[in-house]
């Protein structure tokens, strides 16, 4: 019974020998041979040439042998699709085998063979297995649906497997239910059609049933269910409360994954409850002990737990505030556990426990691991900043550590002492002397920069400050930029404090910074100082020696919306990396962001909000007035950005701005002029209309004519683009109830190299709307309006359409999802915020074409693993029409090839920010498959979506 001998065969001609053995008459010999093949496969040898011989062994009755053959098939079927088809019959037969173990094995394996021809044969057996009498087969079939969905999502939807899967949720067997839940969750995350996505959302009724099944499931099944339940947000407080009560017992499970998933569900539901209520407090209390218990599990699990606790402590510090001691570092904890514990220790530090913490930190600072020691030293500094009463003790501890003369300890200590100075100015300057003694040992930029800052800041108290700075100046060119900048500022500070004897020094540093440095920041700062000093030294003093804002206590907290998202991912990788899933997962799933649910406001709060709204808007629709913040709930900070944009006068009635008042005629695009002409002649309004901006027409027409006009207007604006190829539908951006009566629909267009935003504004309010203006938030592609929004006052029930030309030179900030654009529209009533998705094809520039050779070399240059392939479904387009259609959207077909009736189109496109995307469009019998390659994988999902839209639009 020693199988290790199979690993040792490395002779020549081995494959040939194996082939002979596989075809041997003797059963045992064949089995031996298959084992050898599997062993070779494991170590990475290519044994794919044996495919037919191995498949021949498949018919064997021996279950063990069968399993091995299946294993082989899963590995190599993809490389030999034509031969894999030979195995289909056996699979289908095995799916009918009287032995449930074999039926399950067959259905399990067949789902892993990703060959189109075989997939087609899979549907019938799978349907049977989903209704099999044996639970073991059913639970395997449930997972198989997820496998099939990964291969061909549309097939799964067409064949009604989703319904069957949903039926399994009511199965009598807990494991079948658990696997069905897992499959549904996975499919739900990547559902292709709206209908499917809707079908797979969890209803309250379903969640209720799952929670009942929880107790009977295996530990893994419990994790699947809890993770699925976490995606459901109950509508009422009572429901949330009863869910918490039912999930709480899981906290006592021995499996850490069950515990963490339960914690996730509870943390999310707590958001829906009235803060501070008894129930919330007692629940929070229940969470602490299980979390602490996780720290006595295996190190790797401890690490995952600690990363999560780090989040939980930031979200709800009260949970673990009394559990400080369990985060004390043990001597033989692995380093990753030590570093995490240290981080949490600092977060839990308060005036009450600072003495204990400080004693521990001092202990840690004498350990061996450099990173850990550094972090410990830094932690002491953070303690000082956090707890004022302990600052003095912290400083003296740091001084003790500096006395050890251990190089990295000293450097780290100096960096944190600088922060302490900034928090408590003019308090601990007595230690400067000690710091200066260690000047020579500093070799890290951060430490040097900190020390220089200290010297500059307290130049008047350091007698030899000029000498010290001069000594740094000698190696100015070799320093890093951060140090150079500090040095420049420090010398200027010194000069302003002691102008008499440091003139020479300041001139030297200014000339170094302005004439010899290549760094623009440094040069700019040098020039500014120079000019300040030469024109108005008094002003220079005010600027350079101005009082600095104190640094805040907690510097390394996660941004609240990110924290909220991560809490929704407790237990998962995202919570370990402390990064949202979109940052490390490819594909569509990443685009979905989770956020903590927000509590529905109570009655009192709602009226309060309405009152607040009414103050700003003294109009009739106060009942519609919601605080503007609720439009984009999770991203408070971004709203802040938007509000910072000067909207001249906020929401007041007097806000008729110069922007809207300015006639937009001169800069109007051609398309608009064209439309204007067309309109005039159509409506027969006559007169010298052409020189009038078309937007003013409605005002002239007035009344009922306006609606008709707007219709024609809308219709007309669509016409030219229809010739050009593809025009997206209008999307609803701002519903009337959210816009206090103003309704905005819109779309993005690209015409004649000009990017445009078409806005259709309808006034559903009872009063006139006027004073329109628009602003964009920073976005991924720097989109910004090229001219002010030109819209005339709108009477009630009137609709107007306008085209807003855009440029792409605005401020850039990466958004999530990438193509998200946040817009603020102002009128005489208020400012409204909405966000919309820019279809990526409007960003394709006209310069997207390239030479074939360039295409080929670029394609090769981009690593193969960044290629992304998706199936786009079937369409009736011919390759030519597709090519033309796409060309109209600036997708350039570079080359074309047809092999065995399969058409391949090679296409390229270039985004306005210069990102190149290469595509291979495969058309095989009406089925379209798209492979994309780019150095920026984040654009894939957008491009795929645009392809889908374009193809669907004219099918």
């Amino acid at each position, binding site marked *: 019974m020693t199988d290790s001998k199979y690993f040792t065969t490395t002779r020549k001609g081995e494959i040939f020998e194996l082939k002979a053995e596989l075809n041997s008459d003797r059963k045992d010999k064949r089995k031996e041979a298959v084992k050898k093949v599997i062993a070779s496969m494991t170590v*990475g040898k290519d044994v794919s040439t044996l495919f037919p011989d191995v498949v021949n062994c498949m018919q064997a009755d021996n279950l*063990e042998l069968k399993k091995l053959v299946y294993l082989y098939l899963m590995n190599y079927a993809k490389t030999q699709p034509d031969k894999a088809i030979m195995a289909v019959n056996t699979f289908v037969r095995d799916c009918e085998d009287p*032995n449930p173990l074999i039926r399950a094995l067959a259905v399990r394996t067949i789902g892993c063979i990703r060959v189109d021809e075989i997939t087609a044969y899979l549907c019938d057996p799978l349907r049977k297995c989903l209704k099999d009498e044996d*639970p073991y087969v059913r639970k395997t079939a449930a997972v198989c649906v997820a496998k099939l969905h990964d291969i061909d999502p549309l097939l799964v939807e067409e064949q009604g497997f989703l319904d069957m899967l949903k039926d399994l949720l009511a199965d009598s067997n807990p494991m079948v239910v658990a696997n069905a839940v897992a499959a549904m969750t996975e499919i739900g995350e990547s559902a292709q059609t709206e209908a499917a996505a809707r079908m797979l959302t969890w209803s309250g009724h379903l969640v209720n049933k799952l929670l009942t099944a929880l107790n009977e499931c295996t530990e893994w099944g419990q994790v699947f269910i809890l993770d699925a339940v976490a995606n459901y947000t109950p509508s009422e407080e009572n429901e949330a409360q009863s869910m918490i009560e039912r999930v709480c017992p899981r906290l006592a499970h021995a499996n850490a994954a069950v515990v963490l998933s339960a914690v996730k569900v509870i943390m999310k539901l707590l958001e829906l409850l009235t803060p501070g209520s008894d129930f919330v407090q007692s629940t929070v209390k229940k969470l602490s002990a299980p979390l602490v*218990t996780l720290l006595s599990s*295996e190190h790797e699990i401890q690490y995952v737990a600690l990363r999560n606790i780090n989040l939980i402590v930031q979200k709800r510090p009260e949970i673990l505030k009394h559990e400080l001691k369990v985060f*004390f570092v043990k001597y033989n904890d692995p380093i990753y556990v030590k570093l995490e514990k240290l981080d949490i220790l600092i977060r839990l530090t308060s005036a009450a426990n600072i003495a204990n913490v400080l004693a521990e930190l001092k202990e840690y600072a*004498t350990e061996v691991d450099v990173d850990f020691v550094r972090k410990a030293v830094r932690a002491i500094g953070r303690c000082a900043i956090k707890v004022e009463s302990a600052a003095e003790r912290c400083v003296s501890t740091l001084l003790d550590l500096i006395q050890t003369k*251990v190089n990295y300890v000293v450097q780290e200590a100096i960096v944190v002492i600088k922060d302490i100075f900034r928090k408590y100015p003019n308090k601990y300057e007595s230690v400067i002397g000690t710091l200066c003694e260690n000047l020579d040992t500093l070799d890290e930029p951060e430490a040097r920069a900190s020390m220089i800052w200290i010297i500059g800041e307290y130049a008047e108290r350091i007698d030899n400050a000029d000498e010290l700075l001069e000594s740094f100046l000698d190696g100015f060119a070799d320093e890093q930029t951060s140090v150079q900048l500090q040095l420049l500022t420090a010398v200027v500070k010194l000069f302003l404090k002691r102008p008499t004897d440091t003139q020479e020094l300041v001139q030297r540093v200014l000339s170094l910074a302005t004439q010899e440095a290549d760094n623009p920041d440094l040069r700019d700062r040098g020039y500014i100082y120079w000019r300040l000093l030469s024109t108005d030294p008094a002003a220079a003093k005010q600027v350079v020696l101005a009082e600095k804002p104190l640094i805040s206590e907690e510097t390394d907290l996660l941004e609240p919306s990110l924290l909220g998202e991560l809490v929704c991912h407790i237990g998962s990788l995202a919570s370990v*990396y402390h990064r949202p899933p979109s940052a490390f997962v490819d594909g569509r799933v990443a685009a979905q962001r989770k956020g903590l649910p927000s509590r529905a406001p109570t009655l009192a709060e709602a009226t309060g909000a309405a009152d607040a709204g009414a103050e700003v808007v003294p109009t009739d629709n106060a009942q519609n007035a919601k605080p503007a913040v609720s439009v984009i709930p999770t991203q408070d900070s971004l709203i802040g950005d938007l509000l910072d944009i000067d909207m001249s006068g906020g929401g007041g009635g007097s806000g008729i701005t110069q922007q809207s008042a300015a006639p937009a005629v001169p800069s109007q695009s051609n398309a608009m002029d064209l439309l204007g002409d067309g309109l005039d002649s159509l409506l027969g309004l006559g007169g010298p209309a052409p020189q009038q901006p078309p937007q003013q027409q409605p005002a002239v027409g007035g009344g009922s004519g306006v609606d008709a006009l707007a219709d024609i207007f809308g219709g007309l604006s669509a016409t030219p683009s229809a010739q050009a190829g593809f025009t997206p539908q209008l999307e609803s951006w701002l519903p009337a109830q959210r816009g206090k009566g103003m309704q905005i629909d819109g779309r993005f267009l690209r015409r004649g190299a000009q990017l445009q935003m078409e806005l259709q504004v309808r006034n559903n309010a009872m009063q006139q709307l006027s004073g329109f203006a628009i602003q964009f938030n920073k976005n991924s592609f720097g989109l910004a309006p090229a001219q002010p929004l030109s819209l005339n006052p709108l009477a009630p029930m009137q609709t107007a359409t306008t085209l807003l030309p855009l440029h792409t030179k605005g401020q850039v900030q990466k958004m999530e999802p990438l193509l998200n654009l946040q817009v603020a529209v102002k009128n005489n009533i208020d400012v409204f915020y909405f966000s919309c998705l820019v279809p990526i094809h409007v960003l394709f520039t006209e310069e997207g074409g390239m030479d074939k050779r360039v295409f080929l070399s670029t394609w090769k240059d981009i690593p193969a693993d960044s290629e992304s392939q998706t199936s786009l479904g079937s369409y009736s387009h011919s390759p030519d029409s597709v090519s033309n259609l796409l060309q109209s959207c600036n997708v350039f077909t570079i080359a074309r090839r047809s092999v065995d009736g399969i058409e391949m189109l090679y296409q390229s496109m270039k985004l306005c920010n210069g990102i190149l995307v290469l595509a291979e469009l495969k058309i095989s019998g009406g089925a379209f498959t798209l492979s994309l390659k780019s150095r920026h994988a984040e654009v894939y999902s957008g491009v795929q979506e645009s392809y889908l839209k374009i193809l669907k639009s004219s099918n």
Partner: protein
Amino acid sequence: MIGGLFVYNHKGEVLISRVYRDDIGRNAVDAFRVNVIHARQQVRSPVNMIARTSFFHVKRSNIWLCAVSKKNLNAALVFQFLYKMLEVMGSYFGKINEENIKNNFVLIYELLDELLDYGYPQNTDTGVLKTFITQQGVKSQTKEETTKITNQVTGQIAWRREGIKYRRNELFLDVVESVNLLMSPQGQVLSAHVSGRVLMKSYLSGMPECKFGINDKVIVESRRAADSSSAAGATKSGHIAIDDCQFHQCVKLSKFDTEHAISFIPPDGEFELMRYRNTKDISLPFRVIPLVREIGRTKMEVKVVVKSNFKPSLLAQKVEVRIPTPLNTSGVQVICMKGKARYKASDNAIVWKIKRMGGMKEWQLSAEIDLLNATDKAKKWTRPPISMNFEVPFAASGFKVRYLKVFESKLNYSDHDVIKWVRYIGKSGLYETRC
């Protein structure tokens, strides 16, 4: 979910490679070897991301066990699964080493097929797996047998099969506690906790329903509230306050939450019924008092006193004290009152072993350590803590089993017929005193 699972030896050679998902290619196998196993610097995290692929690893002796995924999967579940897999493999072929893995690779592939489906953990219970996957290959089964197996693998009580019979119904309970301590040189307790486990070995017929009672405050009090008639009478102390407890999956958690009753149908044979943690009122069995004096640059004097702090009638066993010595130690002279003490150069420690030690005793060791003249100041000795190992025959937390009742309605044996054994063992966890 898990996209692939690889097993490597210490050289980074692949022993087992099983890919579950299409997004994991063969290059992932090499990526982990190059970036983690062969990494120049020691890898400092059990989770690593290489080229947008996440690798989770666990190392057991010389074997690397690595799970791979490109999704945002449940990290806790992955590690929990990897440990479970080690456990399953261990129960099939003993020690996890290269030899055993190579010898059983067909078995491992078979297990992996059953443990994970499309990367989702399935049934991982060894007892159940052994009913249909054996080292001797697959047993031929009759139809009834296979349905029995499939029902069991997926069933509600996945951990126990029907129709078990014993002539003698017997059960063993071991309460095993490990006592953890971190003490400052001045004798202040920095942190102390007991992590306890209740191990049960059951040889019971049929499908017995068990009820387990312990002296936890919460459980006892809720019990008393339930039958208020007897509440007035018994106000015995001796209850302990357990911080947190966790149960084997056979325990009905919802029942525990509502009624504070521990009730379950046990798996056959040995399993861990319960795990608990306690931080209050721990009776620390030993106290170590260190005294370290550095005499000049080449000499150190160490005095260590060990005090036992339990009933004199009890006897501690396997007592061992490890006193770390500096790296530049050249020689050590040790004198101790009891037991044997030796300087182990390879461990950089003086190891003092005492076979047996009664309660309320106090023994001392003193040592003189000669040091080489240290040239490199930066390599300062960090004085690791003095650690201790021991085994005592009582539970340091005060944990007591109050009862374990067995009910089996279908077969005719009652609670009285079951032979029950209870044993308490207190062991040292990390029992350290800084010096």
